[in-house]
């Protein structure tokens, strides 16, 4: 009986998938990034431009999103040494409502310092609300995420992390092109073994341009 139900479910899913078409989209972004690290000993702030891209592949209600950016952030103010920043994510999402997409997947970030490389890996749950608000040309979106778990190779222990992004995507009427402007921020809290708290905040302005075959 269970096997029959499973087969029927798979059959329905397969039929639904066959009826869909792949809809790829890709965008090249420049991210003006600012990293603020608050330690009990003091606050360090870095900023710089990162370049990368992200792409999505939609298949019906399912969506696979991949992003990658890298760049160099320099110490702000005192002129200390900068370091390389690389960030990427792979998220598998599903459209719960026409305007709401839920996604889950790993989000990794690494800082290359003179003393070594810090690796931050978060397993995130994201919720993204998007809707057209200027005809069909401009879509606004707000995305929030929270880390379900994290793997960080720093002395402090991970407490929690969350972030968000909001902005708009402009689609051109006569070509499958899109432009994006957004603001993003994520905030991580870690606890030191001696009781201190470390706050890592990364925010930035995202400007992108790409193609969209939706």
């Amino acid at each position, binding site marked *: 009986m269970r096997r029959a139900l499973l087969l029927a479910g798979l059959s329905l899913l397969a039929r639904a998938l066959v009826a869909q078409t792949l809809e790829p989209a890709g965008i090249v972004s420049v991210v003006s990034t600012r990293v603020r690290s608050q330690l009990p000993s003091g606050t360090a702030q870095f900023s710089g431009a990162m370049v990368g891209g992200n792409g999505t592949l939609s298949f019906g209600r399912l969506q696979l999103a991949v992003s990658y950016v890298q760049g160099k952030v320099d110490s702000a103010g005192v002129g200390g040494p900068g370091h390389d920043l690389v960030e990427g994510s792979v998220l598998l999402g599903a459209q719960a409502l026409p305007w709401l997409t839920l996604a889950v997947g790993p989000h990794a970030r690494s800082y290359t310092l003179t003393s070594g490389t810090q690796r931050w890996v978060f397993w995130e749950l994201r919720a993204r609300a998007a809707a057209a608000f*200027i005809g069909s040309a*401009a879509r*606004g979106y*707000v995305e929030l995420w929270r880390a379900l778990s994290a793997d960080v190779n720093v002395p402090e222990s991970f407490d929690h992390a*969350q972030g*968000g992004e*909001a*902005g708009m995507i402009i689609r051109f009427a006569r070509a499958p092109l899109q432009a994006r*402007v957004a603001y993003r921020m994520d905030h991580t809290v870690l606890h030191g073994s001696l009781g201190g708290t470390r706050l890592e905040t990364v*925010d930035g302005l995202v400007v992108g341009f790409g193609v969209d075959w939706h």
Partner: protein
Amino acid sequence: MKRLVAWVAFLVGGAVGPRPAVGQGASGTFAEGIRAYQNLEFGRAAATLRRDLARLTAAGAPAADRVQGLVYLGAADLFRGRRDSAVAVFKRLVHLDPRFLPDRLVFPPEVTTVFDSVRALTKTVAILVPPDTQVAPGANNFGAWVVASSFQTVEVTLRYEDGAPFRSLYAGPIGDSLRVQWDGLDAAGQLPPVGRVLLRVASRAPTGEISTILQLPLDLRIVRPDTLDWPALPPPSAFLPERAGGRSAVRALLGGVLVSGAVLAIPSVVGGSGGPSGSRVAVAGTVGIAGMVGYLLHRPGRPLQANIRANQLLRDAWQQRVAKATAENARRRGDVRLAVHAGPASVIQPRAP
């Protein structure tokens, strides 16, 4: 002499007459009379043929059914020595069918000579018209054949039912036959104002007197084709709104405000400690400006050019259909036809002076 003639008649007529394939041979109606004629029993033949002809005439049989009996009756009367009676019978035969000629293989020259002389002196005609026809008035013509028994002068006219002249079609001599034509219009060039006219052919004797009048009624009916219905205007639901409503404008403004607010609120939502950020304000401002631009672009009452063009195409298509229907209706209104139904011909014998 009479007996000799009878024998000749028997030898010539009798040898050929019985053949059923021959048109003027013995047939069902007059078989008994023809058999008596062939047996030289002219008295019995005449009596029998007269009886059969009277029965056919009373029954209103067509002329074609009676001519065979008449020619045998005339011949029988001739061989009985009753020439006047034979002439009267032949005259009646010529009036019935001016084209009729006795078969010269069946009837001896004595008969055919008398018949020919009667035919030459009898001035009458037959009118041949199609029973039902349609003509385009003024364009093509209604035609009728007038077939004469012999050379004569005829007047072919169309007349109202009360006998008043309607159109004169022909006046003059006729030899064997003549085709007369009518353009379907009255004397003023208009469509006939009446539903029936009479086609009348008056034959004149060589003395100039009218000898016979043959006329047949023509029932006229003006046929006007149906016109097309006026194309219906597209329903209001087919037209797109030509002025923008307020919903899109409000949506743009509200969306801009909401997204801008979300951008500004992100630090407090995620608990960040980034401090003041010019990029955040820049994004919020950009989105807000976009919302305001969207509001202006979609402001209420703004003419929607795409919809106006689409509606105009719809109206143009309707007007083209109207123009097409108007042209087609004009063509159909001009395509008037005259249906002519010919009734049975009747003979009017003018009174003796």
